[in-house]
C-alpha cells in the first residue's frame, strides 16, 4: 500500500516534470491553431491589424529590397552593353516602321473623334495611374501576392486593377496608409471577367496557382485559336474594360488557358489604376 502511494507520487512528479518543459511550446501551438482557425473563419477581422503591421515594417522591407533592386538593375545594364549595338539597329528599323504607323494612327484618331461626335457616344472615363515599387512577395508557393510601396495616402484602394509592363497582374486586396497588397491573377482566389477578342466570347479567368490561369464558363463547342488576345470585359465594374490580360494557349491536357502578357515572376514596378476620372467632371473643373 505504502509502495503504491510512493509510485503514484513519483508518477505525478514525472508528469509535472514532463509538462514543465513542454508547457510553453504546447501553449504556443494551441495559440497558433486558435489564431489560424479564427483567421480562416473570419478573414477580414484581422485585416486592419495586418495592414498596420505591414505599414510599420514597410521601411525595413524597402531597405532590405533596395540592394537587390539595384543589383538587378546593374546586372541588366551590364549584360545589356553587349547587345546594345544590335538593339540599336533593331530599334532604328522599328522606329521607321512606327513613324508610318503614327501617321496612320493620327488619321484614324481624327476620324474616330469625328464619328464619336456625330453619334454623341458616351465614352468610358479615362484612367490615371499610380506607379509603385514591389518590396515583398508571398514568399511561398501557395499565396500569390505582392506588397507594393503605395497605400491609401497615395490614393490606392482595395479593388483597383494593377498592371505591370505589358498587361494586368492582379488587383489590390488590402490597402494600408503606405503599403498595399496585390492579389496576383495566378492566385486560386483570383476571378477576372474577360473577353476573348475576335469571338466576342466572355469568360471568367480563374487562377489555379499555376503559371497558366484557366477559363471558366466557356461553351464546350467553342473553337478559339491559340494566340487570340484576351482583355478585361469590364463586367462587374471591378476591372475597367479593355485592359490587356494575355493570349489563348493550350495546357498539357489540351484545355484552353490564358498565357498572361505580364511577367509577374520578376516584376519590380507596377501601375495601379486609380479610381476612374470622369472626363466630363474634369472638363467642368478646368
Amino acid at each position, binding site marked *: 500500500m505504502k509502495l503504491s502511494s510512493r509510485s503514484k507520487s513519483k508518477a505525478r512528479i514525472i508528469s509535472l516534470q514532463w509538462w514543465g518543459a513542454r508547457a510553453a511550446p504546447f501553449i*504556443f501551438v494551441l495559440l497558433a491553431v486558435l489564431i489560424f482557425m479564427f483567421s480562416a473563419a473570419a478573414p477580414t477581422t484581422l485585416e486592419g491589424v495586418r495592414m498596420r503591421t505591414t505599414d510599420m515594417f514597410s521601411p525595413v522591407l524597402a531597405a532590405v529590397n533596395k540592394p537587390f533592386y539595384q543589383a538587378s538593375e546593374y546586372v541588366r545594364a551590364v549584360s545589356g552593353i553587349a547587345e546594345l549595338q544590335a538593339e540599336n539597329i533593331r530599334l532604328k528599323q522599328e522606329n521607321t516602321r512606327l513613324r508610318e504607323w503614327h501617321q496612320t494612327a493620327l488619321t484614324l484618331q481624327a476620324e474616330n473623334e469625328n464619328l464619336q461626335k456625330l453619334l454623341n457616344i458616351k465614352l468610358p472615363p479615362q484612367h490615371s495611374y499610380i506607379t509603385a515599387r*514591389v*518590396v515583398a512577395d508571398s514568399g511561398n508557393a501557395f499565396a500569390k501576392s505582392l506588397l507594393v510601396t503605395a497605400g491609401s495616402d497615395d490614393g490606392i484602394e482595395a479593388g483597383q486593377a494593377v498592371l505591370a509592363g505589358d498587361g494586368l497582374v492582379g488587383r489590390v486586396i488590402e490597402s494600408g496608409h503606405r503599403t498595399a497588397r496585390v492579389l496576383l491573377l495566378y492566385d486560386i482566389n483570383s476571378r477576372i471577367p474577360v473577353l476573348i477578342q475576335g469571338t466576342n466570347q466572355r469568360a471568367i479567368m480563374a487562377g489555379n496557382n499555376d503559371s497558366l490561369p484557366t477559363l471558366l464558363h466557356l461553351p464546350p463547342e467553342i473553337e478559339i485559336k491559340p494566340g487570340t488576345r484576351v482583355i478585361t470585359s469590364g463586367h462587374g465594374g471591378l476591372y475597367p474594360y479593355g485592359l490587356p490580360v494575355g493570349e489563348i494557349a493550350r495546357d498539357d491536357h489540351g484545355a484552353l488557358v490564358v498565357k498572361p502578357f505580364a511577367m509577374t515572376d520578376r516584376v519590380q514596378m507596377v501601375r495601379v489604376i486609380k479610381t476612374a476620372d470622369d472626363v466630363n467632371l474634369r472638363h467642368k473643373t478646368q
Partner: protein
Amino acid sequence: MIEQDFSFRKFEEKARLLVPHLLLLVLLGLNITALPFFTAGAMKPQMVLMAVYYWAIYRPTLLPPAFCFAIGLLMDVLTGMTPGINALILVLTQWGIREQRRFLMGQPYSTIWLVFGIVALASMLVQWALYGLVHMHWGPVMPALTGALVTMFLFPFVTLLLVMTHRILPVASRPFT
C-alpha cells in the same frame, strides 16, 4: 573600477547574444522581400526555418517557443498568409527538434542535413494542406516539393553563417551575471 569592468563584460555578452537574432531578422527579410531571381516567391527557400532548426539543436534557449511564435506570426502577416500557419510550423519545429537534440547533436552533418530535409518537406506540406483547407482548394503539390528541395540544398550555405554566429556566442554554461 571592478564594477565598471563587470558591467562591460555583461554588456558584451548581451551584445554577442544579439548577433543570432540579428541574423534571424536578416533571414526573415530575405524570406519576405521580393527577390528578382526567385519566381514570385514560388521557390524561395525557408530561411527562418533553417535558423530555428539549427538553434533548436545547438542552443535551444536562444530561440524559445514564444520567439518562434512571434517570428512566425510576423511572417504570416507580412507575406499575406493566413495568420497562424508559419507560427504553428516554427513552434512545432522548435519543439520537435529540441526533444531530439541529444540524438541529433551526436550525429554527423549529413544526418543533420537529411533530418532538415524531412523537416522542410513536412513544413511545406503542412503549409500546402492548411492553405488549401482555408480556401477549400488544394493546388498542385509540385511547387511545394520544389520549394522544400531548394530549401534543403541551400541549408549548408546558411549553416555556415549560423556556425559563424555560434562561435561569437558566449559559452552557455558560463553565468551571465
